[in-house]
């Protein structure tokens, strides 16, 4: 029974903390930084399923976030939908596109797939930049009256925050449930040795395509919420490879293949970034630090922080998945 597993409740506690901490003091600044953290955790968790479970690194995972953002903003501004159907429809649309794309590029193994994912992101960005109904290179602006159905801008920001925390929590639960399911076992087998897995009966093409689509859904919804909140979306922001790069660093740092890893990694990375940004000299070196961190992890601790914890205290494996 899943409810008996301690980790289920650890996730619940984290979600509770995210919800109550800024609410109790009406602390807008805390809310904003936790919102960014929630976005990072969402992106990293979903990326982790492809990277840590199945062993397929998606360099361009940001494309789901950006497309989800575009669909939602378009539905709201051009078709007059309200936020909830717009984000859900955006998530669904991106999921479907991912399934279609996935069936194509997932035939490629390992490194080729990774390169192809960069290409997908660049191709989508180039397309959107030239796509007039979506504002082309200038993007789409949302007028503030679109926040009225949510009770005005101030209240809307809180609602969006809670929604994003919900998306983050769903991502954590999703990666947990997948990991302990039969689907997850098949994915882990693929990640270990794809050919041997196929010989044992794991339907590799179907599983990979399904995973790719599933890992697109929640980031797309997060994108919809994020860009709706910012009331503005343009190609350069929506498809910025830096965010998916950071998601990779976060996942590897925290521990790929584990559920807690991306969350822990996001927290550590956020702290590090905050510290770097306050120091004037070092703010330009964010990317350098991220790269150096990733190199150290890959060379000396490929299991990341949680991997190290698991090795040091094997009993914790069950508790901290």
């Amino acid at each position, binding site marked *: 029974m899943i409810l008996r597993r301690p980790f289920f409740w650890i996730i619940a506690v984290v979600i509770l903390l995210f919800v109550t901490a800024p609410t109790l003091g009406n602390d807008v600044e805390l809310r904003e930084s936790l919102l960014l953290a929630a976005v990072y955790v969402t992106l990293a968790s979903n990326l982790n399923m492809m990277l840590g479970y199945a062993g397929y690194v998606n360099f361009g995972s940001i494309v789901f976030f950006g497309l989800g953002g575009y669909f939602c903003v378009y539905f709201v501004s051009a078709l007059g939908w309200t936020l909830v159907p717009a984000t859900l429809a955006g998530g669904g649309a991106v999921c479907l596109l991912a399934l279609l794309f996935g069936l194509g590029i997932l035939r490629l193994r390992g490194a080729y797939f990774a390169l192809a994912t960069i290409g997908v992101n660049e191709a989508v960005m180039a397309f959107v930049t030239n796509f007039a109904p979506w504002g082309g290179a200038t993007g789409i602006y949302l007028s503030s009256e679109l926040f009225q159905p949510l009770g005005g801008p101030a209240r809307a920001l809180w609602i969006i925050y809670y929604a994003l925390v919900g998306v983050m929590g769903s991502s954590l639960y999703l990666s947990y449930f997948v990991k302990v399911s*039969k689907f997850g*076992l098949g994915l882990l087998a693929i990640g270990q*040795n794809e*050919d*041997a897995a*196929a*010989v*044992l*009966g*794991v339907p590799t093409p179907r599983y990979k395509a399904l995973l790719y689509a599933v890992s697109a859904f929640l980031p797309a919804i997060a994108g919809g919420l994020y860009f709706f909140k910012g009331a503005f979306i343009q190609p350069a922001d929506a498809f910025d490879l830096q965010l998916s790069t950071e998601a990779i660093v976060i996942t590897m740092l925290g521990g790929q293949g584990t559920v807690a890893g991306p969350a822990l990694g996001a927290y550590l990375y956020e702290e590090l970034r905050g510290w770097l940004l306050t120091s004037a000299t070092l703010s330009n070196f964010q990317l350098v630090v991220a790269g150096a961190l990733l190199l150290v992890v890959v060379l000396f601790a490929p299991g990341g922080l949680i991997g190290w914890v698991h090795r040091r205290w094997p009993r914790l494996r069950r508790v901290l998945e």
Partner: protein
Amino acid sequence: MTALLEIDGVSKRFGGLEAVQSLSFTVEQRHILGLIGPNGAGKSTVFNLINGVIAPDGGCIRFRGIDITGAPPYRVARHGLARTHQIVQPFMAMTVLDNCTVGAAFGCQNLPLARARETAHEMAALVGLEDRLDTPAAQLTIAAKKRLELARALSARPSLLLLDEVLAGLNPTEIERMIAIIRVIRERGIAILIIEHVMQAVMSLSDRIVVLNSGRKLTEGPPAEVAGNPAVIEAYLGDPGLAEKLRSRPR
């Protein structure tokens, strides 16, 4: 009784090399068929063709009457065919139990996780690994890894098991142990197609033997017959004219 596995005129070439040429043989239910031949005869290629890793250029492969020619490996597995590899391919970071659970969950039985774990446990015990269920596969010895590979294939509860040089690299004690396990498998009613170089093992285990040489079937028959066949001896020792000499020797 229809044969369990029928190989019918199968051929495969790689560029200029004709690895397998118009090969035909059958495996009956609950039988053990040995596949022998000198190195490079095409034995592993035959396994790869049966199991869907590569598709034949010509011919037909039928399993239980169903045409599986060119079907992808996971579909072949679903029909009830399992295989071990010459160079073992365990899931290194996974435990022994998890390795076998993959076999049980995704094999022809397609079991849900809980039931799959039970079957996995049973098969791990059958090969003598029940004391190491939580050990990561990477930490096992080579002999244990070979037994894990076998247990994992068995967990699918196949009707036909392809064993690819499962005795290679084992010392005599380990070989005896493995042969005992193979006999138990046969008692459970699973048919076996075995590639092996350890002659004593193959001769004592098999009901029939097929001899391959340079992609063609040289001969086929009961072990005793095949062992004494001069052409077979010539193929292994590589001495042309040896067959003639052996035949003309006074008996």
